[in-house]
């Protein structure tokens, strides 16, 4: 089963603006880009052409792993607004 199929089972109420805001100037020179593989929802993707991180924040499971794993500690990580984000029914 691929990640999209897994995420399809999760209930989200997405916000319009991202609650995850990495400092893209640091991401550009980041060697490891840990966020692009440790994220359980695949929120972060590196766009080679634009030389920036694509942030699929609407898929975020709000675990906080990216903030801690980020080599530069440069992700401004907030909880989504009170009515937004993920709603687990089977946690």
């Amino acid at each position: 089963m691929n990640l999209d199929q897994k995420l399809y089972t999760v209930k989200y109420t997405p916000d319009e603006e991202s609650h995850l805001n990495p400092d893209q100037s640091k991401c550009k020179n980041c060697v490891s880009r840990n966020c692009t593989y440790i994220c359980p929802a695949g929120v972060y993707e590196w766009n080679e052409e634009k030389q920036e991180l694509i942030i699929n924040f609407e898929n975020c499971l709000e675990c906080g792993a990216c903030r801690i794993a980020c080599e530069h500690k440069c992700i401004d990580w907030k909880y989504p607004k009170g009515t937004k984000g993920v709603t687990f029914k089977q946690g």
Partner: protein
Amino acid sequence: MLNKSNKTDVIVVGAGPAGIACAITLARAGKEVVLIERGLFAGSKNVFGGAIYTKPTKEIFPNFEQEAPLERRNITHNFMILGEEDSTSIAYRKEGNESYSVIRGKFDRWMAQKAKEAGVILVEQTVVRELIKNGTKVVGVKTELEDYFADIIVLADGINSLLAKQIKLRKEIEPKDVALSVKEVIKLDKDIINQRFNIKDDEGVIGEIFGGSMLGILGLGFLYTNKDSVTIGLGVTLDDLVENNYRPFEVLEKLKQHPTIAPLIEGGTLKEYSAHLIPEGGYKKVPKLCDDGVMIVGDAAMLVNNLHWEGTNLAMMSGKLAAQTAIEAFEKGNFSRKTLKNYEKKLQKSFIMKDLKTYRKLMPIAHERKKAFMGYYLKKINSFFEMFTSVDGTPKKENYRKFIKSIFTDRKFGELCKDVWALIRLVWSILI
């Protein structure tokens, strides 16, 4: 219910087991408590392996076994040691009611309802963005809409506790001190679950999984039976995911395909995928637990006993102890750090800090020797049983000798000595 100044006795941030236990204990003692939860409802942002423990839960909710939405009463602990393809299991089975599997979306919501009935003011769908300080004392919380004030603020805002970080009670978490957990709840017919796990309708099994897709890394898998679903998941320390460039869901997917695990979940459909961080730092990473006007409980205080899969019980008990400390503080009319330090003393005297202290060396040693203890020896246990059960005409004495010899050829003598030394240090630290 609050007066115009939005001032109450106690504000508890986070309606998980720690926050709810704290709030309800205070309300029962006649205090006015506001419990703030960021999710749509209590439990909607919460994820755990799968079991709550009867004795500590009863201390907060004496009739929960009759009233709460429970899944199954666990009667079996199955320790499963997985090699690449094979496995060795030890299952301990005993009739009893030590723990129950629950679904947090239902169970936490029920607990929060109980808290409301006891007089707690539950404010859902509200994120506390920061703490308000007056000098050194925390005096209130800033939410998206309003500011609330209280004599005491209790932080039960979970593993990420941005609030504890804001007031510098907690340092930045390091990747080695948390495990990233991913889990799947897989729908299966009740009768199929009963057959596969050799249980009756209300009986449940806990699976503790070692190795498999986590061979050589600091990770453990878990399996719980619910009424009509099976929970399968794992937690791997974040530094191991980073070092190995692992995607957590791929590690889980591989575990699900292991020949020992696959038949247990075969034919099921995924109900929900989820992820959460688990505090794994142990005793040495427990933060400062209080300051002027504030205390930290549960995951926010990193109170998890990972070896025994215990967390919700530590959360509930820490919440209760913080509430008791708050009640004493109201009697004195003093909410300073000095008064709230009694919470720390209570924790130290309880099983919570005693157990964390017992295992203070566990994670440092586990990190040091993970390739051996979480990899090599798990495989070796399986190869022992492979040898023991093989019937291929080779004389047994030769098999035994070959097996023992292999340990010395597989591993350098120096490494073996380090393994033994690590084991001695660990056992010594636990017992002495």
